[in-house]
């Protein structure tokens, strides 16, 4: 066993108080370092989960020549989530994302209706919800002609229900 270096009474009370202060300071410094490190680690992991760059298809894309679409047809642009619809008045582009929970509605040519396979929401050719759980019509995207005569769909710009690209 270790022998005490000095008797307890012999130590200056000021010295004891100082040592006590150092002990407390070290204790909280250790906790500070630990909490600080844990905080930095946690924050950096959360930030790590947000990618800086995403490899996703552009929201603006060309959808072929206007002549490729027959009058009255509804065409799904694969991989883009957009329906391009050609009527006698002209073209318009509808989002192929159900406004209920995001599945892709299917166009039924014989019934002239969009049906969502997930929960049975229905939309008419204008994209207006008329049955099922969908709370809103399908958004309509901006459509224009690119300089080389192709249809240009802009998914980042929503337009009103009266929007048409004149044929």
């Amino acid at each position, binding site marked *: 066993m270790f022998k005490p270096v000095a008797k307890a009474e012999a130590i200056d009370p000021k010295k004891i108080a100082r040592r006590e202060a150092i002990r407390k300071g070290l204790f909280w410094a250790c906790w500070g370092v630990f909490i600080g490190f844990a905080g930095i680690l946690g924050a950096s992991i959360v930030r790590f989960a947000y*990618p800086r760059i995403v490899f996703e298809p552009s929201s603006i894309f060309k959808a072929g020549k206007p002549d490729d679409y027959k009058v009255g047809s509804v065409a799904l642009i694969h991989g883009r989530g957009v329906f391009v619809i050609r009527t006698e008045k002209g073209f318009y582009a509808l989002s192929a994302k159900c406004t209920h929970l995001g599945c892709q509605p299917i166009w039924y040519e014989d019934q002239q209706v969009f049906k969502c396979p997930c929960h049975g929401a229905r939309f008419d050719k204008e994209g207006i919800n008329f049955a099922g759980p969908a709370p809103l019509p399908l958004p309509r995207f901006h459509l224009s002609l690119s300089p080389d005569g192709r249809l240009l769909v802009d998914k980042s710009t929503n337009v009103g229900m009266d929007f048409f690209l004149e044929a």
Partner: protein
Amino acid sequence: MKWVPLGLVRYTVCLGGLSVFFFLLCILTGPFLMLYYVPDVNRAHADVMDIMQVVPFGAFVRNVHRWSACLMIVCVPAHMTRVFLQAAYKPPRQLNWLVGITLLILTYLMCFTGYMLPWDQEAYWGATIGATMAENSPFLGAKGPFSVLPPDKDIHYIMLGGTVLDQPTLSRFFFAHCIAIPGALAGLMGFHFFNIHRAGGMSGPL
């Protein structure tokens, strides 16, 4: 500490143990499925088909995993119903009830993330629905009520690793299903059992 009277219903106290049993079966079979399954969008589904049709006893191992998960989903709420009906959530077991609710949520998240891994039509649209629900959740989602986060910072974005379901989503769900959620589940289960022990054992005679 008072023992909760059980009355005539006795075997219902096994439901918690059954949940653990099914969880252990999943833990046992899951790593073996990982030997053949690669979370790559171009081959994930083909790998699952390989496990089902080519790998010796692959269909058996996968079905044990799948059915254990399904039965766990049945057992955990049944266990909670038993605890609720016998008022076994009362002191000194309040904290354990809260831990149990967290375990229930984690179990559902296990199921949700595992459902997505085969990368077939069901998985893809199921994950789409889940992601859209997350997008519309309050506070954390960009489109939900009281939303504070922009679309490229919300829970939907962090879940999918972007704005559409693609390779980052599959990688994230794979990580969540195989590492993050089972780890949290196992740790909290240990805490759950420790709390049972601390409160004086099972809430009734077995």
